């Protein structure tokens, strides 16, 4: 364990939790204030990327293993598509959220949007962290013989 950059470490530890909380706020309050799945996903991934930058890539991968990232990527897409499939099973068009509350379509739209935005958030978090892992964990550039 290296002990320099003490201030950065302490501040990061303080901030990571707050960033995650803020991401969740942007995620679930997106329908009343600026925000939504994409922004929330980016903010959420910032928490992990910051942790990775300050505490090394390996410790970030311990917190958020690569295979989990890959599953999350797919899960988010599936949440989005699954919402559409659910509306289809209820006898409505794909992604017609009226299906969730036929008597009060506004509520249906609200619920449907919350769910798909959650899917977007999950995927964006996964993609951003996966891109960071891919670039940060890149092996040294190829030697000439490999071509």
């Amino acid at each position, binding site marked *: 364990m290296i002990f320099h950059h003490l201030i950065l470490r302490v501040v990061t530890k303080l901030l990571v939790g707050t960033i995650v909380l803020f991401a969740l706020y942007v995620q679930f309050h997106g329908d009343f204030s600026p925000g939504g799945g994409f922004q929330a996903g980016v903010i959420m991934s910032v928490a992990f990327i910051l942790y990775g930058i300050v505490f090394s890539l390996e410790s970030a991968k311990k917190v958020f293993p690569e*295979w989990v990232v*890959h*599953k999350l*990527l*797919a*899960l988010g*897409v*599936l949440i989005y*598509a699954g919402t*559409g*499939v659910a509306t*289809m099973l209820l*006898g*409505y*068009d*794909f*992604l*017609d*959220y*009226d299906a969730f509350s*036929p*008597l*009060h*379509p*506004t509520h249906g739209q609200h619920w449907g949007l919350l769910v798909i935005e959650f899917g977007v958030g999950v995927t964006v978090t996964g993609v951003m962290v996966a891109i960071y892992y891919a670039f940060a964990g890149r092996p040294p550039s190829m030697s000439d013989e*490999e*071509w």
Partner: protein
Amino acid sequence: MANIAHVAEHTTRSLIDHLPLLQVLVPFCAAPIIVLIGSRRLAWPLAFISSVISLIISIILMLSVREGGYITYSLGGWAPPLGIEYRIDATNAFVLTLISMIGAVVLPFAYTSVKDEIRTRDHSLFYACWMLCFTGLLGMVATGDAFNVFVFLEISSLSTYVLVAQGASKDRRALTAAYDYLIMGTIGATFFVIGLGMLYMATGTLNMADLADRISDQGANRTVRSGFAFIIVGMGLKVAMFPLHLWLPKAYTFAPSAVTVFLSATATKAALYVLMRFVFSVYHPDFAFAKNTLEIIFLPLAIIAMFSASIVAAFQINFKKMLAYSSIAQVGYMLLGIAILNETGLTASLLHMFNHGFAKALLFMGAGALVLRTGSSFYLQISGVGRKMPITAGAIVIGGLSLIGVPGTAGFLSKWLLIQAALERSSDNSLYLLVALSVVLSSLLAVIYVWRLFEVLFLREPDLSIPISEAPVMMIIPMWILAGSCVWFGFSTDLLYDFANQAALNLLGGSMGMSDSVLNLGTN
């Protein structure tokens, strides 16, 4: 609960109403499911099952629109032109069927080929990417919303770059090939979306049918014209229209065999469909600019492609690379069919899309089988292999004959129609006689490069010191399915001709507008 009274009556949708969407949705959902399950053993069956479902759906759709009219599906319950619309008519149902047929036939072939050429730990991600690419191509064709075309184009392109780069475990040059394709493809997609932006600026809508209505209302202004130019160049890049074809030979040569088979038969075809859709449905051919573009730009470029790419193909020493150059030449025939601008020409173009898709997929499968057994597709390594792998080589022969357009194979019909289309136009412009002649002459060039392949496969002495066995059954079956259909469509010409002709009439009829002739799928 005061607003209950305002809630509109809702008629429950049945499965059959959802078919236009399920066509795209089934393979799309397969991709994340494959990643989530993450099992190497389950990835292939899942991909295969969803491809087969997709094929069945596309056949049902094609049969229900073969008499004309269209089926519409609005996403999210938002009625077009505001919402995204999927619109299936005779033209795109034809292309959808081609893509999903190829998808379902190539996957059994891919099973062995991918095991040989891709690292084992990447298999599930590989098939996920494959399904995304498949989804993108189907979506580009199925959608009736211009911006949605761009979204699906990007889905298919991005996954294609990854798929091409997978060839790197065999040959590192796949990486530069994928990178070249990425740069060119991105430029193409950017041009396309710039063109769409201009159209949106001029008309305020993105729905293709609505665009067509509004463009014909306001006539040609400069924005609409430059939008047209951007769209043509952007899609021209994806189609590999000469001289925008430079990405194609490398990408097809170094990609894993199964990927090449799939892409060669579908990717350029889907882009060509989009090109046709924009030239004929969104902009009407009477739109003077479009007509001039076809005659002054498409026609000469198509003819140059037919000759130059065929000549280059004749000098290749690598089976896959030869086929890649031949693809550029064959795209030339399809563009020629569009540029001739009559019913026969368009029918020929659509038919050639289908026939070439089958023949080229078959030939690339043959190349893939040879790579599996000999480790390379260079003529030097595969010389005389035809005697050791007669079943594979037999299928290659049929594919090669169809590529030339020998009577009795599917390729003959489309080339014949192309010549006929040019002759029809020659009554008012005798230059079209030269066009007809060029089709014949460039087919002779095809004889040269195909003969060269036959000579390598059969007439050269095989190296008896290396034992080479026949390709596995999983490869032979799809190859012979394609070979069989090349011959069958060569003799029973009516079936495909009728579909292609209806598709061409549909395109030439221009846009069907926002509300005419909707078909109800449930009643068919």
